[in-house]
C-alpha cells in the first residue's frame, strides 16, 4: 500500500511546529502503525533527515507510552486500541493519514509527537495510593473483598495512564484518569481510611496542573484504550463533594 503521512514536526517546546508530508509506498497490511513509522524513520535517517520522534515502548498496548492523535482521534480509528496495537489492515492504498501529538496545555510538546505527561505522576503523588509500608501488611485473606467490588476496582485499575482522555476532551480534562484511580482504591476496603482525603487531594492537584473541568461530553470514554467507564467520574465527584463538607 502507498500511504501519505502528514506528521507534526516540532523541534522543541518553543518551536512553532508544522505538518510535514511523507510518502511511504511499501506498507504491508500486517504492519502495526508504529512499524510503518519505523520504516519511514529508517529512510529519514539514511537521507540525513531528522527521524520523527515518538514515544513507544512495550508495543503491546499496556505501558501507555504511545500517544498519537491520528486523523483527529487519539490512538486512531479503532476503538479500545492503543496506537501500537493499531494495524495497517484498517487502511487502504492511497490513504492520507494525519499524525499529531496529544494537545493539552498540561502536556507540553517535547519534540514532534513526544509530550510531557509528568502531570499525571503528580496527580498520583497527591494521593493515588494506599499508605502501607513494605512488610506491614496483614495476611491477604484477613480482609475478604466481594467479587463484584474486586472486579469493578480492577476495571478502573486497568487505566494505562496514556492521556488519550485528556487529548480527546474539548476541555482538556483529566477527570477520567483521576476518577479511575479514585474509583479503583475507593471500592476496596483497604482504600477506605484515606478515601476522602485522597479524592480531595487528587482533584485539587488535577486542577492545579491546569487540566480543564469535566462537562460530561464523554469524548474520553470514546477513545480510552482500556474502556474505562464514565461512572468513575461520578464516583470521583461524589467523593470529592463528601470530602469538602
Amino acid at each position, binding site marked *: 500500500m502507498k500511504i501519505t503521512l502528514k506528521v507534526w514536526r516540532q523541534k522543541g517546546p518553543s518551536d512553532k511546529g508544522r505538518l510535514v508530508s511523507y510518502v511511504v509506498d511499501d506498507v504491508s497490511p*500486517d504492519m*502495526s502503525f*508504529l*512499524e510503518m513509522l519505523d*520504516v519511514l524513520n*529508517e529512510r*529519514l*535517517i*539514511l537521507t*540525513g533527515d*531528522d527521524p520523527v*520522534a515518538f514515544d513507544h*515502548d*512495550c*508495543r*503491546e*498496548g*499496556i*505501558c*501507555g*507510552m504511545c500517544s498519537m492523535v491520528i486523523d483527529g482521534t487519539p490512538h486512531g480509528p*479503532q476503538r479500545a*486500541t492503543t496506537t501500537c*496495537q493499531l*494495524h495497517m*489492515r484498517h487502511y487502504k492504498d492511497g490513504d492520507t493519514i494525519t499524525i499529531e501529538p496529544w494537545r493539552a496545555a498540561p502536556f507540553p510538546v517535547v*519534540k514532534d509527537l*513526544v509530550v*510531557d*505527561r*509528568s502531570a499525571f*505522576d503528580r496527580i*498520583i*503523588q*497527591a494521593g493515588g*495510593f*494506599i499508605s*502501607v*509500608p*513494605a*512488610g*506491614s*501488611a*496483614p*495476611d*491477604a*485473606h484477613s*480482609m*475478604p473483598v*466481594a*467479587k463484584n467490588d*474486586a*472486579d469493578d476496582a*480492577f476495571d478502573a*485499575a*486497568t487505566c*494505562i*495512564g496514556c492521556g488519550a482522555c485528556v487529548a480527546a476532551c474539548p476541555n482538556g480534562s483529566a477527570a477520567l484518569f483521576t476518577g479511575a484511580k479514585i474509583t479503583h482504591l475507593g471500592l*476496596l476496603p*483497604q482504600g477506605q481510611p484515606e478515601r476522602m482525603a485522597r479524592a480531595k487531594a487528587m482533584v485539587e492537584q488535577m486542577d492545579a496542573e491546569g487540566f480543564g473541568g469535566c462537562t460530561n461530553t464523554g469524548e474520553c470514554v470514546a477513545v480510552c484504550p482500556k474502556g474505562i467507564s464514565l461512572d468513575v467520574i461520578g464516583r470521583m465527584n461524589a467523593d470529592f463533594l463528601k470530602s469538602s463538607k
Partner: protein
Amino acid sequence: MNRIVDYTVGEPIRDAKAPTGPIEDRWETRKFKARLVNPANKRKLHVIVVGTGLAGGSAAATLGELGYRVTSFCYQDSPRRAHSIAAQGGINAAKNYRGDGDSIYRLFYDTVKGGDFRARESNVYRLAQVSVNIIDQAVAQGVPFAREYGGLLDTRSFGGAQVSRTFYARGQTGQQLLLGAYAALERQIAAGNVTMNTRHEMLELIVSDGRARGIVVRDMVSGEVETHLADAVVLATGGYGNVFFLSTNAKGCNTTAIWRAHQKGAMFANPCYTQIHPTCIPVSGEYQSKLTLMSESLRNDGRVWVPLAKGDARAPGDIPEDERDYYLERIYPAFGNLVPRDIASRAAKNVCDEGRGVGPGGLGVYLDFADAIERLGRDAVEEKYGNLFEMYERITGEDPYRQPMRIYPAVHYTMGGLWVDYDLQSTVPGLFVIGEANFSDHGANRLGASALMQGLADGYFVLPATIGDYLADAHRFDPVDDVAVAEAEISVRTKINRLLSINGTRTPDSFHRELGRIMWEFCGMERTEESLNKALELIPSLREEFWRDVKVSGTAEELNQVLEKAGRVADFFDLAELMCVDALHRTESCGGHFRAESQDADGEALRDDEHFAYVAAWEWSDQGPILHKEDLEYEYVTMTQRSYK
C-alpha cells in the same frame, strides 16, 4: 575491535555468603546478623536505584520508607511504564490457600527442579519464604487480584506446577503489581524521600576506591551528561532479551546499564541462559519490530496441536480430530500442555522442523480453545482470558473464539545477569543488582509466574534488609575520587561523539536486526559447537562494520532516539559475544540452554552434573573473558534428570 574470544579460567568463587544451618533458618539468621543503620543516619545515606520496574520501583519505595535518601532513574517518561507492566499470567506464592498440598518447601523444590539444578538452594528457599509476604503487601496496597465469590483470592495452576499457587489479576497481573509499586514509589516521591529522574539513561558506573559510588546518565530530553554520586548503587534494569532484536521485551529494554557495570568489574553470570517462551504470536513479516507474548496461562485450557501430516494446508476446522497431533499430550502424558517452557518451546520447534508447522512460513502451532469453550462456556473462557483473546485478534485479525490461535516460541526472559551474592551484592562492593538484571534465583530456566515473585521479593524484602549491612560502614568511605568521576564522564562523551562522527550508511536498527538473526539462528533455542563458533565469527565482523558504517543522525544535545539506540546496540554486540562464549563452554544441556550434542535418546536435555554443576561468572578483561566458577551444592533437593513424562 576484533577481540580474542578465548577465555581463561580464574579463581573459583568459594563463598556466596549465604548463612549455614537449616535452610529454613538462613534468611532469619542473615537478617538478624545484618548490621542496622540508626534512623537518624539513614537520612544521610544516599542510594541510587536505576530502573523502576517491579524490582526497582519496589526497592526505591521501600528504601524511601526506611528513611534512606533515594534517587531513582528510568528511561521512560514515567516510572509506571517499566516493562514489568506487560507480565500477564500471575505471581506464585506458597500461601497454600487451596489446601492442595502446597508449601514453602514445595515451591522451593519446584523452583530448584524447574531451574534444572543450576540455582542456589539458599536463595530459592528464601524466595519461596518471602513469596507469601508479597501477596499480603500487594493486597494491602489495593492490587485487585482475582477473587472468588466468597471474597477470597482466586488462584490458578501455571506452567510446570501441579498445585494452584498462582495469584492473578485477569491477564494483567504485571500491570497491577507494577502500579502498586509505582503508587508506593510516588508516595515516597511526594514525601521527599525519593527524587525521580524520568527520561534519563544510565551510561556509566562510577567506581571509586573499589566501591560503586555513582553513575553517569544522559538526560534524554536535553542531551546533558550528568553525574550522580551516592553511597550505594542498585541496578534494577531488567533483562537483555533484546539482544535477539525480536523478543517480547519492550523496545527500550537494553543491557547498557549492566554491561557498563560488567566492564567496571561486576561479573556476569550464566549469560547463555535465555528463556524462549512457547506461546507468542508468530512473526508476520520483515518489518516486525517485536513479538507479543500470549500468557502461558492459556495452556491451562488451550490444547496445542499440529496436523499429523506434513504440509497439511487445510484450515484448522477442516482437519478432523484423528488427523491432529496433540503432541504435548502425546509425548508428556503426565503434564500434557503444562510442561515447562523450554520443553514446550523445543517441542514446537521440532514439529515445525518436521514440516508440520502452520501459518505463514510454517512457523507456528495451534493453541486451540474449542474444547475449553465447550466445557466451560464462552463466558468463563472470556472471564479468564478475554483481554488476551482481544490482543490476539487485534494483532492477527483472527478471532480465537472461532479458530485456534497460532503460536510460536520467542525470546522472553534472561535468567543470566550480573552475579550477586546472597545479599544481592555484585562483585563490585556497593553495587547491588535486583530483579531480572541479576542471575540469582531461576537457575537455567525460570518457571511461569516466578519473575514477578522474584522482582518484588528482591525489591520489597531482600535488598532493603541486606543493603543496611553494607551502608553501616558508609561513614568510613573515602570521598569519591574526582579522577574516577572525570574518567566515567569522558568515557560517556567519547562514545557519544564517536557514534555521531561515523556518519556511515546503515542505521542502528539494521545492525540490531542482523545481530538478532545471528543470535536466534546460532545461539537460540538449540545450540551446537558449530553454530556457536559460527556466531563467534560473525559477531565481531558485524561489530567492526557497525563501528565503521553506522549512521547516527542529529546531535548529542537534543532528544535523539537514534543516538540512544546506537549506544544500546553497541553494548549488545559485546554481550552477544559473551553469551556465545558461555554457551560454547557449557557443553551440557540444561534448562533454557540446549546443546544438541547433549541430549538423551528421547531428545531431552541432558545435564552433565559432574562437570557443570556450577554458576559461570565471567569477569571482563581486555584479553578476553575470565571464568570464575561457583560450585552449586544440593543438600535438600536431590539432583535428578527432569522428567515430565
